[in-house]
């Protein structure tokens, strides 16, 4: 009796530790800190609390599981208020990744709306990262957490921004991970964040607009300094987010999930 109980306990602990292992394997612990976002009307730096972030963007195969489990997010069922007609339009059907299935199953899922990304995160018991969390992790290069001022790093990101999108997105995790062990923050897709709709580019907030105008000018000028270029990558991301609506389903826009530490 005792022995049985003992074995049972071992089995249980093996199961639970493997579950924990699987979870931590996918998510990286991000130690909170302060950083300088592209702009902030609050003050100069922003504090991000520690949190967990998926090490890779959500893939087509993973999203397919979600769609199977949640009929209302099927391509044929989704309500137009939650996703425009491009939703998952690179797939062959509701449960069919299409002719490139083998190639794209491990590629980031794109053509998904903010609502869909959010629903997926909820299904996983997670949430979308906030804009500040995302930018905080995105400012890490391979060797240090805050590398936004590193020119080589900034130029590498801009290089990617200047390349056209490939017809078929490569798989995740092809490059090197950053300081936090997180992959593909740059170079593969753009990503939804929870509060994408806090970015103003239409003039409601004068402080933001001033900064953006300055960058529009910099963009048109060949005399833009290297300091401008460092921030120019961030400017592109903020401008892009500012142009999004939550139902947009765009070919190079995917997401990854985050979770609070408790």
């Amino acid at each position, binding site marked *: 009796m005792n022995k049985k109980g003992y074995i049972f306990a071992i089995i249980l602990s093996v199961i639970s530790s493997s579950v924990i292992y699987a979870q931590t394997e996918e998510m990286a612990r991000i130690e909170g800190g302060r950083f300088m976002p592209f702009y902030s009307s*609050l003050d100069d730096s922003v504090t991000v609390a520690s949190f967990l972030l998926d090490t890779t963007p959500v893939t087509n195969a993973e999203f397919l599981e979600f769609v199977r489990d949640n009929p209302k997010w099927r391509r044929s069922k989704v309500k*137009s208020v*939650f996703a*425009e007609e491009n939703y998952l339009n690179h797939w062959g059907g509701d449960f069919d990744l299409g002719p490139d299935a083998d190639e794209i199953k491990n590629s980031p899922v794109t053509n998904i709306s903010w*609502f869909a990304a959010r629903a997926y995160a909820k299904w996983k018991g997670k949430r979308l990262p906030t804009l500040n969390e995302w930018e905080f992790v995105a400012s890490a290069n391979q060797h240090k957490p805050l590398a936004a001022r590193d020119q080589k790093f900034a130029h590498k990101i801009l290089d990617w921004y200047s390349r056209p999108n490939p017809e078929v997105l490569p798989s995740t995790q092809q490059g090197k991970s950053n300081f936090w062990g997180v992959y593909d923050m740059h170079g593969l897709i753009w990503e939804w964040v*929870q509060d994408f709709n806090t970015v*103003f580019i*239409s003039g409601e*907030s004068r402080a933001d607009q001033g900064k953006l105008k300055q960058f529009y000018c910099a963009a048109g000028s060949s005399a833009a300094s290297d300091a401008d270029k460092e921030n120019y990558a961030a400017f592109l991301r903020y401008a892009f987010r500012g142009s999004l609506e939550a139902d947009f389903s765009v070919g190079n826009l995917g997401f990854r999930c985050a979770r609070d530490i408790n």
Partner: protein
Amino acid sequence: MKNVLSFATVTVVTLLLVACSSKKQSDGHRQEEPMEMAGDNHSAHADMQMGAGEPTDASIYNVSSAWKTRYGNTIKLDSLRGKVQVVAMVYTYCEHACPRILADMKRIEGALNQDALSKTNFTIVSIDPERDSPQRLRQFADENNLSDNRWTLLNGDQGDILELAALLGFKYKRVSETDFTHSNMITVLNKEGEVTYQRNKLVDKPTDAVSSIEKLASGG
């Protein structure tokens, strides 16, 4: 394009709903309007539910979020269905744009013809749920003479507010402990909860909004 198509659908659906739509509305606010509740008998209620069915594809009433009214009652947005809704997202401690948005809504209210007025409701959603408690919303409504039968004030949780903002295309950001920067937006929803008219700036005369509402009100 999308809107035109779905508008056609909505017109058909709302035509089927005329008879019960006002019932639906009073049901959503039953505790706010005890007089109407008395007349709300059970079998009529059941008929109404059958007729109403699911929200249309383009309706924001597809969300399942729950909100608190100024009286502390919990409602789903779906209970706003059946009337044309004039919606704004504000915070009551705002000293700049929000009072003007509210003034614009009241100007719209004042300019509507009697028929449209009876088929229209004004909904204010707070973007500052911690400070804009139901009690605070009630006080705000009293101070501004926002009547029970035509004004709904809602308090919700952060995630649901963010979701509603995303549905309306409303942008906001906390800029200090006490203030937000936000769109100056007034949205008109048709009786099915589809966005049919939006205005992003403060204007002197709400002519466009009024004609849009009157058209929707008479259309079903």
